[in-house]
């Protein structure tokens, strides 16, 4: 039974991916015909345009083009960037670790802090602690993450310059050891990571809080207390694990927002990841690159969703027997 549940999830993810491929193909085929870019250059001759069409395989019938496209994509050939002339995939591979670092640490921190705050607020419901945490997270929930990023720069890199506000390492520095370099990366990571964390924090907090409030009204909490467990232990051992379950599923919805945040936050902090790659592609109208980053973002989000499902599967015994 459980195997089928998992297979269903994987199947759905694959189907979504196929959708992405089809969409990507038609969108960029319909509007982003690379020859339309070249044709606007006054110097281009018909011959050159024809050559270009051939290079891009645009002279083939649509179905053939699609087959080519799928084949290329599956073999990780995402085309050549129009600006850097490097294979799009190579650029993405170089940028991906940085995005994963930013998104990973940001999400992790947001989950931990958000969950912790949610627990605090739920166990202090109606008090000033609760109001304060609620107000704070509603504010971060409503404010644009790149704005928070700029404010962070304004405060911690300009008014009180204690953190670098751009790049991932101090440029042009030869480090004595990998540890120094790691420390330097951490130094650069802090502000963008904080922005990412603050962006996600509100939602995680709200989810955790209401989930925790729900769990605390459950009978088993009373029973656990009645067995003589301390308040903290009931919260930590029984209430939190149960309240975390909805957090796992609901946070999957957040992955799309994470991808969006990666783009804006990386732009603000010139963080050399996928987001900045997309931002440059927007400005340079580098369609192969835009297409590639979109594909990778979509894949990442779909994969993360699947991961959340699997995680939920392992966390909640109730699902396993379904």
């Amino acid at each position, binding site marked *: 039974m459980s195997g089928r549940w998992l297979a269903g999830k994987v199947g759905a993810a694959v189907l979504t991916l196929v959708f992405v491929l089809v969409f990507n193909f038609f969108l960029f085929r319909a509007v982003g015909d690379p020859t339309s870019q070249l044709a606007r250059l006054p110097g281009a001759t018909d011959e050159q345009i024809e050559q270009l069409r051939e290079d891009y395989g645009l002279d083939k019938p649509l179905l053939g083009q699609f087959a080519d496209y799928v084949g290329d994509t599956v073999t990780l050939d995402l085309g050549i960037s129009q600006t850097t*002339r490097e294979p799009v995939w190579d650029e993405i591979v170089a940028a991906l670790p940085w995005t994963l670092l930013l998104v990973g640490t940001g999400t992790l921190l947001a989950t931990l802090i958000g969950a912790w705050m949610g627990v605090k607020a739920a166990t202090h419901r109606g008090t000033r602690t609760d109001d304060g945490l609620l107000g704070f997270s509603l504010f971060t929930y409503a404010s644009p993450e790149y704005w928070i990023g700029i404010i962070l720069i304004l405060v911690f890199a300009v008014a009180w310059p*204690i953190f670098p506000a751009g790049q991932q390492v101090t440029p042009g520095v*030869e480090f004595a050891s990998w540890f120094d370099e790691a*420390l*330097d990366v951490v130094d650069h990571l802090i502000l963008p990571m904080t922005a990412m964390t603050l962006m996600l924090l509100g939602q995680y907090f709200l989810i955790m809080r209401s989930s925790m409030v729900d769990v605390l009204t459950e009978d088993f*909490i009373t029973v656990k207390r009645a067995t003589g467990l301390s308040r903290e232990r009931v919260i930590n051992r029984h209430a939190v694990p149960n309240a975390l379950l909805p957090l796992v599923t609901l946070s999957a919805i957040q992955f799309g927002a994470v991808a969006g945040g990666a783009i804006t936050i990386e*732009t603000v902090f*010139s963080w*050399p990841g996928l987001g900045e790659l997309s931002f*440059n592609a927007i400005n340079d109208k580098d369609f192969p690159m835009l297409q590639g980053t979109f594909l990778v973002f979509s894949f990442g989000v779909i994969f993360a969703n699947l991961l959340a499902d699997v995680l939920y599967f392992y966390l909640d015994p109730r699902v396993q027997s379904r």
Partner: protein
Amino acid sequence: MSKGIKVAVTVVVALASFALALVALPAAAQDSTSAAPGGAGNVLRIGWAQDPNTLNPFVGQDEEAYTVWALNWDLPINFSPKTLGPAPGIAESWEVSEDRKTVTLTLDPGMKWSDGKPITSRDVKWSLEQLGGHGILFAGYTSGITRIETPDPETVVIHTKRPDARIVGGLFVYVLPEHVWGKVPLSRLKGQYQPKLPLVGSGPYVVTEYERRKIITMERNPNWRGEPGPYDQVQFIRYGNQDAVERALDLGEIDLVREVESSSFARLGEQEDVSTRRSATPAYTQLAFNLCPERLCPDAEFNPAVQDRTVRQAIAYAVDREKLNEIATRGTSFVANGILPSYYKAFYETPEQTYPFDPDLANQMLDEAGWTLNDDGVREKDGETLSFDLYVRSESPSTVQMAKLIAEMTREIGVEFNVQVVSTDKLYDLTVRYQDGKPAPAFDTFIWGWGGDPYDPSFLLSILTTGEIGGSSDAFYSNAEYDRLYREQTGIFDTEERKAVIQRMVEITQRDLPYLVLTEDPQLQAYRTDEIETIEPICPEETGDLFCDQVSYDGVLALRPVAGASSETGGGNAGLAGLIGLVVGFIGGVIVTRMRSQGRDEPLELSE
């Protein structure tokens, strides 16, 4: 656990976290200083917002790439920033034949590439033919060349169709080492070829490290023929956005910013340890009129009154260019007089007709031409009204501002401009519109700009030739005399003689006004005075008011580091250290309070 043990553990944890915080703080702070740039004081750090997308000159198109190439490679004949004339480059000397159709270059036999291989005539021939023939940015310069001969390794003979002054005055094609580039098939050179590092070169510095979107490091070329450069390394550090670049300069992370926003130019100038420099460039911003003649553009869409010369001249008198410069660009630009920027000192002279601000004269001219004011205060004649669309690009706030100011100014003479703010793409589409294979521009007027070649004005002058209609021309101006003079000047090798011809061209355009050139664009630089002693006025020698960093390495070679300046990175890891301390302290604190509160916890909220 007994109470005694708990207390003991609490104390130990608290002490340990406190100690850790103390250790982490200075340790982290120290790490940053020990990790400061290698060879302090001997690195020139230049910051920019964007870096070149590629170092391959066959496909590269960025302005930034030129800056790197110019340090890495010589031209066949260089440009002397000091005298603004030709100077020895790859060629030690050159000779122009009697009929001026053949130029013979003589190379220094001892010259070597940075990898030790000799620089020969084969390199020059290959570069002119391949890079000059196929490089996106370089093809234009070699169009006049018919044949290149290399009788021996030290001699290159260049034959041209017609006399072409650009061979000596502006052959802007880098000479690449054929033994490296010649091995790569052309299709790859024009495709995704990325040159190997170090980038074998002939200039004072060669690229040894290129991390895209991060840093370009150039080191001294051991085989450089001149005085060794003042710096061991030149680094170009990319910051992703202008804001970060300027902040890096503030913090002393970099020594020099090549290009500063006009909005922050004044502010940076007031900064401690920062100095700014404003220099002229071969670029201008113009108000362009649609002059496309009926026979060339039967389907063009515009208000025909725009093709009335008197109207254009009146507009020119009514526009206060000083004021435009003062307000729209906050005085950072230069007021322009005609289509030849004053940057080209060798050829420039203030034209006779400069259209000084004189709205009364403008009104009088229009009155005399029979344009009468209607009820709306706009002049009209024979059913035509002096009401024009004025397109500006939203990406350029300063030109948007100029457009509005112009509209205000010309209201005084009964000429109406409807300012249309559009995207660059949109304006491009309006100007290069085609119908049935013929140009069909759909605009009355617009404001945009052009940038010329650093030491030869031919490109800027070519824009208004009839031949460029369907090419670069966006005013669609056509004047036989102008075209003839343009061809003539390209064949004149003598500067004074050529200057006279160019002057006549300028006067023609000042009379016909296809463009009313508004301002000449500046290059705004900022540098740290505690790192760089001075930026010597070498371009040209006496005044140093030109920007030629892109064309020549002399700009960098003329810089002098401040003695004993350390390239200390501002900020350091102080914040990180503090944060570590804070986190450790916090965790310690939580543990302590938690242990203490074990005894008295409150009942959990439970519902019935």
